Structure formats: C-alpha cells, structure tokens
C-alpha cells in the first residue's frame, strides 16, 4: 500500500505532468468513435420473414411494441398473422429482449443510434430492412441537428 498516514502538500503537484499528456476525450464530430460490435441501437425487421407472431410485443418490458395490421402479408401458414411490430422510441429502453425472443430472427438491432427530429411522431416507426433513417451509420452529422 502506498497510502501514507500524514500525507504531503507537495505530491499533488506531480499531477501537473498530466498537462503534457493526450486528453481522454475525442473531438466529436471530427473524430468518430464507432460503437462496439454488440451495440444495441435501432431495430430492423425483415418484413418478409417476420410472421407477425407478436412475441416481441409480449416480451417488451416497456410496452414499446404495438402490432399494426399489414393485410398484404396475410399468409396461410399456421401461426402467421398479417401484423408487423411498430416500435415507439419514446418508450424503448434498448434491452433487446424482443430480438432475443423473435422466433424467425427477422427482428435485429443495428449500431445506429442517432435520430434527431422536431416531430415526435417520427420516433414511432415500423422497423423494416432499411437502416432506420438517412443518418449514416454511427456518424453524428451536425447538419442533421438543424434539419428543417
């Protein structure tokens, strides 16, 4: 142990050598720190593969998923429903339980996590195969912050 009983007035000044070291922080938006492989961001859903079973909606702890009708996906196979999940990002806590219980594996999460908009309705959407919106993957686009 290097903790001394009486301490010193001088030793704290050795911290001054930190001044010549590089800072911890990264200069956003000049430097972009990509999220980790497993990062849990927005949802994507392959609407063709999804069977509308509603497991994702039932397991969601925040009641963020609502099943909405999609008559064009009415199929004959048992267990298949003409419904697809719609996620409300005002409620979602990005726990990924929905992804975990999806029996078809159609529901996934991508690493994108920035979405800036004035209209609150734009935070409720039906995930499809496209990455959620036009913000490029993990780039914090400052122009996007000021969209009309």
């Amino acid at each position, binding site marked *: 142990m290097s903790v*001394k009983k009486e301490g010193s*007035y001088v030793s704290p000044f050795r911290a001054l050598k930190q001044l010549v070291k590089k800072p911890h922080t990264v200069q956003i938006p000049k430097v972009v720190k990509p*999220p980790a492989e*497993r990062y849990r961001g927005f949802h994507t859903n392959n609407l063709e593969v999804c069977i509308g079973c509603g497991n994702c909606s039932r397991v969601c702890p925040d009641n963020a998923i609502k099943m909405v009708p999609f008559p064009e996906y009415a199929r004959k196979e048992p267990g298949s429903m003409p419904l697809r999940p719609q996620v409300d990002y005002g409620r979602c806590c*990005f*726990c*990924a339980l929905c992804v975990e219980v999806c029996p078809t594996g159609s529901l996934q999460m991508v690493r994108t996590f920035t979405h800036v908009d004035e209209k609150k309705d734009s935070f409720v959407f039906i995930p499809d195969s496209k990455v959620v919106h036009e913000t490029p993957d993990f780039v914090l686009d400052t122009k996007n912050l000021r969209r009309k």
Partner: protein
Amino acid sequence: MSQTKTIDLFFGPQHPGITGNFSVRVTVDGDTVVKAQVIPGFLHRGFEKLMEMRHWIQGPALICRICVPDPDHSETGYATAVERLAGIEVPERGRYIRSLMLEMSRLSAYLFYFGGYAGSIGLYTVGQWGVGDRDYILDLFEELTGARVYHIFNFPGGPRWDTPPGFEDKVDKLMDFLEKRLKEFDKLYFNNRVFIKRARGTAPMTKAYAQKMEVTGPNARATGWAIDVRKDDPYAAYPDLDFDIITQKEGDNYARVIQRRMEFEQSIDLIRQITRKLRKMPRGNVRVTPNPLHWKIPPGEAYGAVESSKGELGYYVVSDGGIGPYRMQARGPSISHGVQVYEEMVVGQRVADVAALMFSLDVCPPDIDR
C-alpha cells in the same frame, strides 16, 4: 441561557454538493449543524409494484435503474433471488462472467466515489480523472453487453452472452492501466495533506453504532466490522475466488475513503483471478433460462443479496406460481446510510462537511426512493 438565532439551509435537490435528486434541510447555528432532515422522494418510480406487473425475465430491464453508477449489482441481486426460488444452477462460466461484471461495476462506481468526495472538499481534478478513467471501463462494458450504462445483461439463469473473443486480454490491459493510475491517484488525492486534514476525524462512526443502524458495505468495514456478502452469503463465482475482507478502524470520513481505495486494489486482483480462470474454461455455455414468455416459477419465496459498491443490496421475491413475481421487495443500502445514519451523524458537523459526509457515506438517492 441565551439562544443564538438558527437558520435553515437547503442542500439540494439542485446543488453540486448532493449526490443526486435528493435534498437535506439543515438547521445551522453559526457554522454548526444542529438539526438535519432529509427530503427524499424526488425520484420515486415504484419499482416494486412495476415488477409485479411483469414477467420474470423483464425484471433486469427495470431494476438496473435502482442504482445508476452500479447497475450490475441490482440485476444480479434480483437474478440470484429468482435462481434460488426456481432452483436454477448457473453454468460455471456464467458465474465467472457475472463476477467479472460485478467487479468492473464496483471499480467504475468507486471511481465516481473518489471524484464525488474529492469534489465536495474542492479537489476537482480527482473528479475529472475519475470520470475519464471510468469511461474505459464503460468501453469494455459496451463490448461485452452492447450498452454503456444500463447493461440489462444479468438475467435470472445467467449472463446474456459469452465474452467476445479477446475480451479477457482487454480487461487485463485495462487493469494494468488502472493500477498505474491508482498510483497517480495516491499522489494527487490519497496522500494529499489537504484531503487528510479535512477527512481525518470527521464524522466518526463506531462499530456498535454501525451494527445498531444496519450499516453495511464499505461504510461498515471502515469501522472495523468485517462483513461482506461475498463471504457471508456467497453468490456468482465468489466462493471460488481468493480474497480477504479488508477493514479499517476509525470509521471516519478518511477511513471510509481509504476503505474504498483498498477495495479498488482488491477488485483489480479479483478481476485478474477471474480472467485467468475464464481463459482456461471452455466457451459457450453461460446461461440457462427457460422460454421467457411461458416461464412459471413454483410458489415460494427467496432472498438474494449481493455486496454492491454501497453495501448489501438484496431482493426478496415471492412467487404464487405465475409468470411474474407476486411480490418483490428491494433492500437497498442507501436507506440506512442516507436517511437514518446521515440525519444523526451530520448533527454537530460544520456546514462545509454536510456535502462531504453525504459523499463519504456514498448515498445513492435513486436507491432511497426506488
């Protein structure tokens, strides 16, 4: 006898000298506190009731919010209780990953703690360093769990996923870095005469008082009382790990801070033991959870506790055979530290130590309100 005029001061809820959404009304006579009343409740979210409306598997998504700087202990406490109730045995690798996360979480909470206490006595650099270094731990959490702060990872049955390839090496590298940094922290902070003069002898707590007030965790160990849930009621991989309970004697602000500094070193050592073991283990099998949507647990009750960075954090769970808890109750350390103990101990202290005592007890307001 002449009575001087006393005035009431409000500390919080918007005050840098308070640990969160929490408030204390102190009555001061000159510079000395003569009465204190804590005002909690700004952050009440009703977790216990919310849990009763949810499936067994949905708990961790909620209760990690009970203690913000140290969320993994909440998840694991609940998971341990549910596992005991359902009679689930977590695979060995799962237990080790759990302990790894808990110790990493403890390190990150202590880095916050160092900065918090130092900030309350005016040594702001420590706070900047603490938050900066904590981010490297969060980077590793992001790699392991996919999230930085609320990991939602320790489910009843085991941790969600196995470690990504090469994770153990990255953890070891970070531990080397933190060990080096701890030496610099020693110079800047723990051996700083200003800190020692301010902290030593301030608000001492005796072992008997700690036992009477149900003080737990590092605050209790700082009085010389050797209690530690990791030893007394082992969970995760702690029965297999080699460590001793560290204690101090004095029980004052200084002992409480130094206690955490010593445990910081111990956590680094524990993490190294865990990564050594993880490397030797076959990968893959970490979790056993039944189908979450149809998971029913036979009627009964169980208590699972963990040694969080703040003290004993326990969950009492009752099942009536349904798909979720019939009753869930949390036992947080901060209720006793932040309400009963704080109100009594702050009397007689100077105004400048009102915030210092709150930080030294490591009070977590979200845990008080729940």
